[in-house]
C-alpha cells in the first residue's frame, strides 16, 4: 500500500472496533487505501510525516479521517484540534466515530470543527450500516475541496 496515497485514515485504539469498522468498509470496497493507527500520537505522526512516518510525503493527505475519542497518549479531541488548526490538514473531513453519546463530547467536537459525529451502534447490523453509509457518503457523494 502506498502510504502517500491513502484515502482513509482510521484512528482507533480498540482492535475489535477497528476490525468491525474495516470489515464494514470493505463490504463497500472502500478499504483499498486505508491505514489504521492505534492512537492519537501515531495519527499525528502519520499526518505530519514525523516519527515512524518521516519517510512519508506530507503532501499526500487522506480523503477522510475516522477518529475515535477516548484513546491513550493523545486524545481524539486533541488530535481534532491540531488537525483543524493546521493549514495543511484543516480541509480534511473528520468524522468522529465513538461509543460516547455524551452531550459534552458532541458539543466540544463541533466547537473544534468536526465535520460529522457518529455514535457507534452496539448492534452489528446497525453498526455495519452506519459505517458503510458514512464511508460511501464521504468518499463518493461528498465533494471535497480540491
Amino acid at each position: 500500500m502506498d502510504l502517500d496515497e491513502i484515502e482513509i485514515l482510521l484512528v482507533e485504539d480498540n482492535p475489535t472496533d477497528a476490525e468491525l469498522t474495516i470489515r464494514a468498509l470493505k463490504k463497500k470496497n472502500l478499504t483499498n487505501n486505508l491505514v489504521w493507527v492505534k492512537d492519537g500520537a501515531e495519527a499525528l505522526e502519520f499526518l505530519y510525516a514525523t516519527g515512524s512516518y518521516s519517510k512519508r510525503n506530507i503532501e499526500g493527505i487522506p480523503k477522510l479521517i475516522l477518529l475515535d475519542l477516548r484513546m491513550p497518549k493523545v486524545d481524539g479531541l486533541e488530535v481534532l484540534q491540531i488537525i483543524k488548526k493546521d493549514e495543511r490538514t484543516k480541509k480534511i473531513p473528520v468524522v468522529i466515530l465513538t461509543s460516547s453519546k455524551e452531550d459534552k463530547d458532541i458539543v466540544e467536537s463541533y466547537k473544534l470543527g468536526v465535520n460529522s459525529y457518529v455514535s457507534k451502534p452496539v448492534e452489528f447490523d446497525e453498526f455495519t450500516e452506519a459505517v458503510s453509509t458514512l464511508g460511501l457518503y464521504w468518499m463518493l457523494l461528498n465533494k471535497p475541496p480540491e
Partner: protein
Amino acid sequence: MLVNFKINLQERGRIVAIVLTLVLFSFLTYYFQFHLGKIPISSLSSLYLQNPSHPSYLSYISIILTSVWWKKKRIWFAPAFLTILLIFIQLLFVTFGFKRYSDYFSLVMFIFVIVIVAFLGERIEKVKSLSDLNEKLDKEKSKLEDANKELDAFAYSVSHDLRVPLRAIDGFSRILIEDYENKLDEEGKRLINIVRGNTMKMGQLIDDILQLSRVGRQEMRISEINMEALVKNVYKELKLSNNKNMQLKVESLLPAYGDRILIQQILINLLSNSIKFTKPGETAVIEVGSKQGHDENIYYVMDRGVGFNMEYVNKLFGLFQRLHSQEEFEGTGVGLSIVQRIIKRHGGRVWGEGKVDGGATIYFTLPNEL
C-alpha cells in the same frame, strides 16, 4: 437585624433565666456599694458619691459584664450604648434638680435595660446559630457536588466503556455466522443468536441505567409548560417511529411548572407504555387529561390495553420490576421508575390503577405555581 418576636417555650425559659441572672447580679452590686460604702471605680464614682440613692452606675456596668459573660460576646455593643444614653439622661435630671423624677426614671430604665439585654441576647444568639447552620449547609452542598461529579464520571464510564466489548460480542458472533455459515448447523446458529440476543438486552439495560442516572443528576430548569402541546408533540414523534395503530384523545390540559425536558421524558415513557401494552391486533387508544388540585394539577394517562393486576400495584414503579414476561412484552422495567424519579424531583406524586385486560391509568401531579 432579625425582628421576629415569636418566642417559643424554650426561648422564654432562657430569657427568664437571663433576666433573673442580670437582676440578681445588678441588685447584688447595688446592695454592696449602697450599703457597704462607696467603691470608687472610676470618675463616675464622684457623681455617685453625690447621689448615693440612685441605682448605681455600677449596676449598669454589671449588666454589661453579665451579658458579656453569658457567652453573647457581641452583645455589649447595644446595651453599652443604651447605658451611656441612660447615664447621660440621668445626669441631665440631676443637673436640673429633678431628683424624684430621676429616681423613678432610674428604676424604670434599670428594669427596661435588663429586659432589652435579655431579648437582644436571645436574638443575637439566634442569628449566630443561623449563620452556623448556613455554614454547615454550604459544606454539605459542596460534599453533594463532589458526589455528583463522581457519579457523572461513573455514568460516562458506563456509557462508553461497557458498550465497547458489547459491540465486539455482537459483531463477532455475527461474523462467525456469516463467515462460517456452511460449517454451522441450525443448532449452532440458534446458539449464537442467543448470545446476540443477550448482548442486545445488555445494551438496552445500559442505556436505561444511564437514562435513570441522568434524570437524577441533571439540573432542572423550571418554566411554565404547555402540557397539551407537549403531549401532542410526543404522540406525533411516537407515531412516526411506531407502526402500530394508535389514537390519542386529549382534552385541553392545564399548564404546569417544571423542567420541560424531564416532563417530556415522562410523557414519552407513559405514552410508549400505553402503546406497547395494547392487546395484540388492537388499536392503541390513549387518553390524557388533567384536573385542577389545590396547588397542584393532577394529570392522567389512560389506555385500554392489557392492564395489570392491582395486587402487584406496589411493584409498578419498582426499578427493573416488571409485571409481564419478556415474551409477552419487551422491556427492562425502568420506564416507570424514571417517571417516578422525575415526579419526585418536582415534588409531586405518582400512582397507578389497572385491571387485567381492562387497561391502566397512571396519575401524576405537578405544581401549578412556582
